[in-house]
């Protein structure tokens, strides 16, 4: 790790003032710190967001869920309030990384990084979530712009994630054998109005995406059997040494079925 200057602001405004082109916001540090240790990232300043009260806390008002950006995966996984309305989401959070990662990593940090193998982006796309930053509110579709790319501008930070809980939700992922990140993860949900969301993690060459063919198949019949007949087009999917695009296409279908089964 190269030398860096650590800051611990107490408010969003204070943090934003510290921001610069060479600085980085630090949340749980589960990606940034290993990258820095390998000298692949060298921010001049680290602005630690974990001590800003405004970024903390989970609130559930009826079906409306609001999660502060600095909430850890572990807090989300163990939130009875979220679990009561959207168990697929807490299940997803409880299966990120390992216990050490879940106790440090945060939802804001994860989605700001938008690792294509991260779990949250698929769920937020499927749920039609909104992402609030210190300056604006974006839909998940607007926020996630590509692999490791988001709509965040320099100095902008995620402050909260919000969504309306669906009637049913489920998540199934197939882990990369080495990294244990999602090699393919599928989040499915069905709203009270019958709308269906399907988000896919770990498989897209441009990051997480919604699957229109699975959404339309499930819209008429929200059952695993509804996905039997569909075929997923491998073009636009990632190929790496662990999984070809064809294999990932297969996994999308298989994980999709399992997610629907889990959603009940």
């Amino acid at each position, binding site marked *: 790790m190269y030398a860096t200057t650590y800051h611990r602001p107490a408010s969003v405004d204070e943090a934003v003032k510290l921001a610069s082109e060479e600085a980085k916001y630090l949340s749980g540090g589960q990606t940034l710190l290993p990258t820095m240790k390998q000298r692949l990232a060298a921010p001049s300043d680290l602005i630690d967001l974990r001590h800003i009260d405004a970024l903390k806390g989970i609130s559930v008002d009826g079906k409306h869920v609001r999660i502060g950006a600095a909430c850890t995966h572990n807090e989300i996984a163990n939130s009875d309030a979220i679990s009561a309305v959207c168990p697929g989401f807490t299940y997803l959070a409880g299966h990120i990384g390992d216990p050490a990662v879940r106790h440090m990593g945060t939802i804001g940090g994860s989605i700001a990084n938008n690792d294509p193998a991260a779990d949250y982006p698929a769920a937020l796309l499927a749920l039609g979530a909104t992402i609030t930053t210190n300056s604006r509110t974006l839909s998940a579709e607007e926020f996630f712009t590509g692999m490791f790319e988001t709509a965040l501008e320099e100095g902008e930070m995620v402050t909260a994630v919000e969504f309306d809980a669906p009637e049913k939700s489920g998540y199934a992922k*197939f882990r990369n*054998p*080495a990294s244990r990140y999602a090699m393919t993860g599928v989040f499915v949900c069905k709203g009270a109005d019958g709308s269906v969301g399907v988000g896919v993690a770990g498989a897209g060459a441009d990051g997480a995406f919604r699957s229109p063919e699975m959404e339309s198949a499930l819209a008429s019949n929200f059952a695993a059997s509804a996905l039997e007949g569909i075929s997923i087009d491998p073009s636009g999917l990632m190929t790496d*040494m662990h999984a070809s695009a064809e*294999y990932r296409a297969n996994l999308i279908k298989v994980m999709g079925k399992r997610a629907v089964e889990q959603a009940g």
Partner: protein
Amino acid sequence: MGVEGIGARVARKEDKRFITGKGRYTDDMVVVGMKHAHFVRSPYAHAKIRSIDASAAEKMLGVIAVLNGKQMTEDGIGNLICGWMIHSKDGSPMNMGAWRPIAQDTVRYVGDAVAVVVADTKAQARDAAEAVVVDYEELPVVTEAVQALKDGAPQLHPEAKNNLIFDWEIGDAAATDAAIKSAAHVTKMKIVNNRLIPNPMEPRAALGIYDEAEDHYTCYTTSQNPHVARLVMSAFYNVAPENKLRVIAPDVGGGFGSKIYIYPEEIVCLWASKRTGVPVKWNSDRTEAFLADAHGRDHVTEVEMAFDADNNMTALKVDTIANLGAYMSLFSSSVPTYLYATLFSGQYKIPAIHGNVRTVYTNTAPVDAYRGAGRPEATYLLERIVETAARELNVDPAELRRQNFIREFPYQTPVIMCYDAGDYEASLEAAMQAADYKGFPARRDEAESRGKLRGIGMSCYIEACGIAPSQAVGSLGAGVGLWESAEVRVNAVGTVEVLTGSHSHGQGHETTFAQLVNDRFGLPIDQVSIVHGDTDKVQMGMGTYGSRSGAVGMSAIVKALDKVEAKAKKIAAHLLEADESDIEISGGELKVKGTDKTVPWFQMALAAYTAHNLPDGMEPGLKEGAFYDPTNFTFPAGCYICEVEVDPDTGKTEIVQFVAADDFGKIINPMIVEGQVHGGIAQGIGQALLEGTSYDPETGQLLTASYMDYTMPRADDLPSFKVSTTETACPGNPLGIKGCGEAGAIGSPPALINAITNAIGKNDLTMPATPQKVWAALQG
């Protein structure tokens, strides 16, 4: 058997310090004035070095020196060697290219050292290493052995035309070809044995200390054989004569073979310490370990097995190309030859065998012994082709094996080895019973009802351990003898120190070796200390690899104990006024048989050292040494049965049962032996299911250079193992020990692949059998 004697499940004495973080590893060593080294490593797999500009780095804060290979050569430091000479079948010696500890003109793999920075802190050394400007001229790259042999392939060393190091053969080609020609059935396969990266928990490290006042060097290093390190560094690398070089291998956190060899880094630390006048420490980070530790395996083999009309094996023909990487590591030449092809007979009577092995340079990390070293490769090809033949012949694989077992001993194979003892039927039966082999079809049907493909596979392995005897290995090209030494010191108060040339880096010698003393004299193991790993304390030793510490190292201790016992009895007989033939030792006492006359052990020891009342002419003291050179290898063998369930939707394999029945001969501590088997199986499952080393064929970049991409086995990848042992005593050594360190890694990969291919009904599957590969095989 006493509670701490031979055969007792004694808890490991050394574990208290290991599990409380009190182990003392090389990187824990801190000496006054110590500085830190960081290596500048080549980012290219093959390139000419046009120039190295260290001027900016030398001016950086904390930097003491930036050293290069030319300076090393000027100071007379020699090239690294391969210590086992192999001759090609045309009689020519192997074509060994030069391996300089720091590359001078050409780099040949990603990670090849080109310079070293010594600085006050590790971070400063690393910063300065980034400021060393190396001007490279990139050269074409070849990473695969089969490609490297082709005309027009990039050439690595001028000494090795077409990158061929040697073209070696074993056995009778004509008889084998004739048997294949007249066979009723021939099974043919192409077998790939995947390259593995060892990944011991403790990365390599070295601390070089030059004492100008004494003109003496001390090297702390992560070595499995510190005496061999001293010998090689002294005799070949001209670091210092042996009397001026002390090598200490303190606690070492796993080796698996990768810490046998003498690497450039420890030589550089010693040399740099003299050159800079300060002690120099280097500690590998994990990425360096991936890049620059010696890798294992990496064979491509064509194999044919012939049968007569009654399904008797009649011939085996093997043609292997082995990738040795960019340079020949210390024992690299012996692994795909004498540690490999001499096991081609397996547990079977095969009248005609021929093996041909070509070894090849490529732009990859050097390849050398890794847990099993040649024997896993032999077992894998043999047990895969036997299983495949059974499927083709439509006979039960267990019965095909059983029918062809060797049953009379000693058995001279057509490939040098003479098996001394074994009962292969016994381990097969034990494994089949434990696995409920007969119940498999019902379990398969039940799994099918759950949508799972269930398969069963077995492997009957044999290995050669206790690598020896010296005369034999010498005649096969080994540059060293492979005996072991021991010294038993009885102190004046009766406590015992055992000095051994074996080295423990996880094997539990501090416990098992003490059990030998307990068994002999009845002393609590707490009163027995094991001293190892220091060339100033232990006179000489050959170290630990090839499961040799039991069969060879313990045998040396037994010989020394024999001498101590004989002298102790003489002293006791004198003190008790009895005949020494009437003295017996047990429970910490020396007794006159059939009487109540005794002398406590400690009193006998005190008498030896006070020397007030010793037999006429006896020297004072009680300390005896021994060298032990075995008469043969030992031949552990066993049967492993694996049962898997494959999810056809994802291709993911779950191991639902794993049974091991091993014959290790006499066992000193069953708990430690079971631990060895568990660890070995975990590594074998790693090879078969998870671990795949991948180099980019165009650029030679290591694509699996971290745990993000290289899959080490984890607890949840592994089932509970059902392990058991059968025992045929080994006639070749006094304890009847065969060795157990590598069996798990040797026997398990073919059992697992046989099980998966049985489950999916497709035989063409390479290791590691990742979910993607299994799924793809199911689609095909």
